[in-house]
């Protein structure tokens, strides 16, 4: 049976140096639940190390977390990946780490906290997560696809780190599933401004508590899976995005 799922598919945890330290996976899931969100995409910069805690917290509270990552390409374009399993996100993480130079400087960029579902600090990630990988957008999207994930161009309405900002226009041979817009632009305005050839996703890109769920996309589908979400994005088999 088809039902509605309220999703926020781009949320950062305290692992992202630019996110608030109190954005622990357990707290994010709790806040999301209180705001009526059914599906949460956890997408830290170039790392998936808080995914296990987010998945466990979600299991305890009866909410769905999609393991993901926001990968920075060599062109400095942000691509969001979402997966069915933590293992797939971990595999992407291995590829990303192998192509991510540099070490974090906490004073300059912020802490990169790895936590567990009981809100305890497990450690601090040392990679330069704020930096760019040496992978092209095409290579990143192709790895996401190989791992069975959903590949989304992040916040296309922003001038920085977006596909349209960095590369001017959507390369026609890039097999993306969707384009994200931030809460700074309405769906109607984005449709007019970009005349997108791909479906739009409204996400919060939350880095702090109050932004979680600030911009959401409602899916009509049977269950929560990448396959069902692809169907909804393409409007197949009765699945749909509700505007």
């Amino acid at each position, binding site marked *: 049976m088809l039902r509605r799922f309220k999703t926020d598919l781009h949320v950062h945890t305290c692992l992202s140096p630019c996110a608030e330290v109190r954005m622990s996976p357990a707290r994010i899931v709790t806040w999301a639940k209180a705001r009526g969100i059914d599906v949460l995409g956890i997408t830290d910069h170039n790392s998936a190390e808080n995914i296990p805690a987010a998945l466990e917290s979600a299991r305890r509270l009866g909410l769905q977390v999609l393991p993901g990552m926001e990968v920075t390409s060599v062109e400095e374009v942000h691509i969001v990946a979402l997966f069915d399993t933590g293992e797939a996100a971990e595999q992407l993480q291995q590829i990303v780490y192998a192509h991510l130079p540099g070490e974090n400087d906490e004073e300059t960029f912020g802490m990169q906290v790895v936590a567990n579902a009981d809100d305890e600090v497990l450690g601090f990630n040392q990679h330069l997560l704020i930096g760019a990988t040496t992978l092209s957008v095409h290579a990143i999207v192709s790895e996401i696809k190989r791992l069975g994930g959903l590949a989304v161009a992040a916040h296309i309405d922003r001038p920085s780190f977006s596909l*349209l*900002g*960095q590369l001017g226009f959507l390369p026609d041979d890039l097999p993306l599933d969707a384009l994200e817009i931030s809460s700074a632009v309405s769906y109607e305005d984005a449709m007019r401004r970009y005349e997108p050839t791909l479906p739009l996703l409204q996400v919060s890109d939350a880095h702090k508590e109050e932004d979680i769920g600030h911009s959401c996309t409602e899916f009509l589908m049977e269950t929560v899976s990448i396959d069902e979400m692809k169907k909804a994005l393409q409007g197949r088999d009765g699945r749909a995005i509700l505007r």
Partner: protein
Amino acid sequence: MTLKEVVERLGLRVFTSQGVGDVVVTGGYTCDLLSDVMGNAVAGNLWITMQTHQNVLAVAKLKDLAGIILVCGREPDQDVLRKADDEDVLMLGTDESAFRISGRLFALLEKS
């Protein structure tokens, strides 16, 4: 100053195979954000960038730029090079930074 003279005077590498023409270089534009280049570069400009994504070709064509100078020793990959040849977009290169090559191009064009 013609493209040919600029390439010689700055010691630029020529990646593409179509040859360097005698068109007049109208100026330069230095930026890695393609959206900005699309908005602000002027026809006949030499575009100085480290961006090697294939979209640079479409932008250069769209804006009718004299050519692209890749900086810091960056080179286009084979696919991009093939496309540049097909679409007749001149791709040049230098080991120098964007700052240095921009300065040298500016001085050269000011004098001419």
